[in-house]
């Protein structure tokens, strides 16, 4: 059986020392091993950004796509081969700015893949512009007088979009993150994990310490029912989305594929591509 070391390759990440993304990578590798996966059963599909480089640092099949498009590529992969474990990943700009349309639709579509966002509330790769999740008043290269816009709270958007699995954590808590990712992968349907992954170079506000001080573990809410979407939404609203843990889980909703019947019996890639003579003739007869 594979251990987390089997999910490592010999490529040295080009992330800055101390970047939160290192720990997200480690947590994914541990979670995959923990779930009993083999590297060749996993496909990691990423977008563009510092975070998007992840697909090259995990030993598995990897597809580093274009900015904002990891989700549709990942859904296409899953539709072709339902036996693969598919993880899509990228940054907050990737998923909540240029790729936001895909994010909302992947959430409502509920194809069985896992989406892990490395949310550093900044554009890292392009050297420090504001991002959709940057706080109001946050000073960046592109907002020298402070951001004028309300930040997106990713878990709120996810829940509002019909998500069936919503979680949030911080990259410094590898233990919790690993466990969340394991459960996210096991979830039958689309699982959304927002990970605060500090950018030590361009975000001097939302630091490791800041998250330690400001994130409230969901376990602190007595009697919190993870299956209750209403109370999940209220708790998110009352705490400005600054929560960590599994926020919402609906294990009963059927995935997109499950509702397709025969489609889901066998991976598309194993099917016969040629039509039988009788099928061909029947289909052609419609044109007569």
């Amino acid at each position, binding site marked *: 059986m594979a251990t987390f070391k089997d999910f490592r390759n010999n490529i040295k990440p080009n992330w800055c020392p101390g970047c939160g993304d290192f720990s997200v990578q480690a947590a994914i590798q541990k979670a995959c091993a923990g779930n009993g996966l083999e590297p060749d059963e996993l496909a990691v599909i990423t977008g563009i950004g510092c975070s998007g480089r992840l697909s090259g640092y995990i030993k598995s099949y990897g597809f580093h*796509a274009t900015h904002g498009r990891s989700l549709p590529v990942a859904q296409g992969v899953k539709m072709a081969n339902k036996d693969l474990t598919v993880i899509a990943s990228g940054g907050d700009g990737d998923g909540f700015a240029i790729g936001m349309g895909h994010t909302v639709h992947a959430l409502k579509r509920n194809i069985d893949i896992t989406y892990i966002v490395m949310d550093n509330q900044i554009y890292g790769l392009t050297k420090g512009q504001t991002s959709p999740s940057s706080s109001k008043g946050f000073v960046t290269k592109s907002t020298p007088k402070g951001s004028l816009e309300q930040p997106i709270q990713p878990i709120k958007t996810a829940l509002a979009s019909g998500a069936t699995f919503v979680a949030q954590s911080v990259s410094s808590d590898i233990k919790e993150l690993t466990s969340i990712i394991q459960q996210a992968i096991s979830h039958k349907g689309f699982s959304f994990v927002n990970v605060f992954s500090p950018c030590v170079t361009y975000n001097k506000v939302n630091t490791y310490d800041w998250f330690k001080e400001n994130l409230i573990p969901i376990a602190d809410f007595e009697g919190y029912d993870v299956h209750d979407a209403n109370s999940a939404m209220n708790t998110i609203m009352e705490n400005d989305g600054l929560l960590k843990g599994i926020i919402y889980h609906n294990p009963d909703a059927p995935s997109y594929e499950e509702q397709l019947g025969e489609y889901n019996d*066998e991976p598309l890639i194993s099917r016969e591509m040629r039509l039988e003579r009788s099928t061909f003739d029947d289909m052609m007869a419609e044109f007569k």
Partner: protein
Amino acid sequence: MKEQLSWKVGGQQGEGIESTGEIFSTTLNRLGYHLYSYRHFSSRIKGGHTNNNVRISVDEVRSVDDNIDILVAFDQQTIDVNSHELYAGGIILADSKFNPTVDESLDVVLVDIPFTEIAKEQGSQLMKNMVAIGASARLMKLPMEPFKDMIHTMFIRKGEEIVESNHNALRLGYEAMDEKFSYMNITNDFELAPSDGKERLYLIGNDAIGFGAVNAGVRFMPAYPITPASEIMEYMIKHLPKLGGTVIQTEDEIAAVTMAIGSNYAGARSFTASAGPGLSLMMESIGLSGMTETPLVIVNTMRGGPSTGLPTKQEQADLNQMIYGTHGDIPKIVLAPSDVEDAFYSTIDAFNLAEYYQVPVILLSDLQMSLGKQTSDPFDLSRVEINRGKTILEDIERDEDDQDYFERYGDSDDGISARPIPGLKGGIHHVTGVEHSPTGTPSETAENRQVMMEKRMRKLENFVMKEPFKVTGEKESELLVISFLSVNGVAGEAIRRFDPDIVGNITHVQLKQLHPFPAEALYPYLDGAKEVLVIEQNYSAQLFNIVKMNYHMHSKMKSFTKYNGTPFKPNEIEKYIQSILKIKEVL
């Protein structure tokens, strides 16, 4: 007796004009006639004038005629808009309900028949189309039985009674026309000569493309609706579930094309279909396919551009974008089926080429080819081949201690590398749109860049399809006519109107491989021609300029274009050819 006739039915959109045309022409197909039909419609769903022009012939037809012989009118607007198209001596069959009138200066016969009234007497005014079909059948002296059979298959689900009343409506229309003959002065001959009775298909280009895709092994299609591509998606929605497949209607065209890329990467053939606006959105992703060497097929059913342009009108103005679009250099194939029959085979070719060369392939169509309905010989299953090239679908044996990534982008003579699909043992590799090493790891070194760029571009360096174009005529010619897609049929008809014994050879090349441009294969025809004429439907003569880029004798090259949204008519091309050949009078 007439070897061919053009029949047109018109009325308000949403009034059953389409089904009238459908029932009439499908029956004629079953009788063994060759057909070419074209629907005129507007962007409105209800209301607005619509018409269906059906050309019926005992020989092959690939275009509408210059004029029409018979006009069936359900409203006055139909007469006002279309009567000038009638040949001298043509006939209008109009519903008495609206007291039809026609411009008296026109040499046409107006026959009014109570379409609506007869239908109402049979129980529903919806049946007025059956009355009109009955009248048309009588005019052309066609037997009633095939129409009755057609009605039976169409309506039997709704019960015997409905079949019965539709049969009655048909018969009463027939009799009403018959009666007109007894006292009206209808001297012109509208009797249709007998057909060869052969069994043929009668379909729109979009259906041929959909059926082709299914035959190429596609079981998954992501797509976003747009005119005139939606019928391809609809065909797949109708048929894929029975084959264990599915369609996803995505949030936009970027999602559609990147999902198709994901599916192809994972080893299941997939494609998407759209038109200009959608293709514009897909440009970045076409580059992703080219750079990652992931097979991809996109159908572009061209309509009038730019921007929203003329969404329901004919144009061929996306050629430059299809050939040059996406930033940077990638190898890409652009195909243009020569007609509806060829659209079926070309679609299968597109998938095989995409997978063999691991490149994006754009299969072009235009509104007229996508939505125009024409007869075709039945498709031949034995001509359907599936070639997956260097795709690896089985686990790869590796030494126990060999932990290296698979060289997905290993260099080779033909530039094409082995492509294991994800999930295989021994095939782990990385794929990225960033410049990369043979294992797919991002790499920006100058040496690597040069090797990889050359490897990718080498794949199509000498690429020529088995049949890069269809030719009618000789290498030596007075005039070489070059066209593509739906213009082929019209140009072909115009050319046939010239007698080679009088004007000399006119050779016709119907280009199928638009990119890479098959220059070598074309040189003998270009060299052998005294003059070269490129005919296309866009403002800037896009194809003409591409031919010019590839051929030095600019002085003998001429361009003829049309960009008002309507298809060419044969006589427009005929007149232009006359002017080139300096023929003064119509032959």
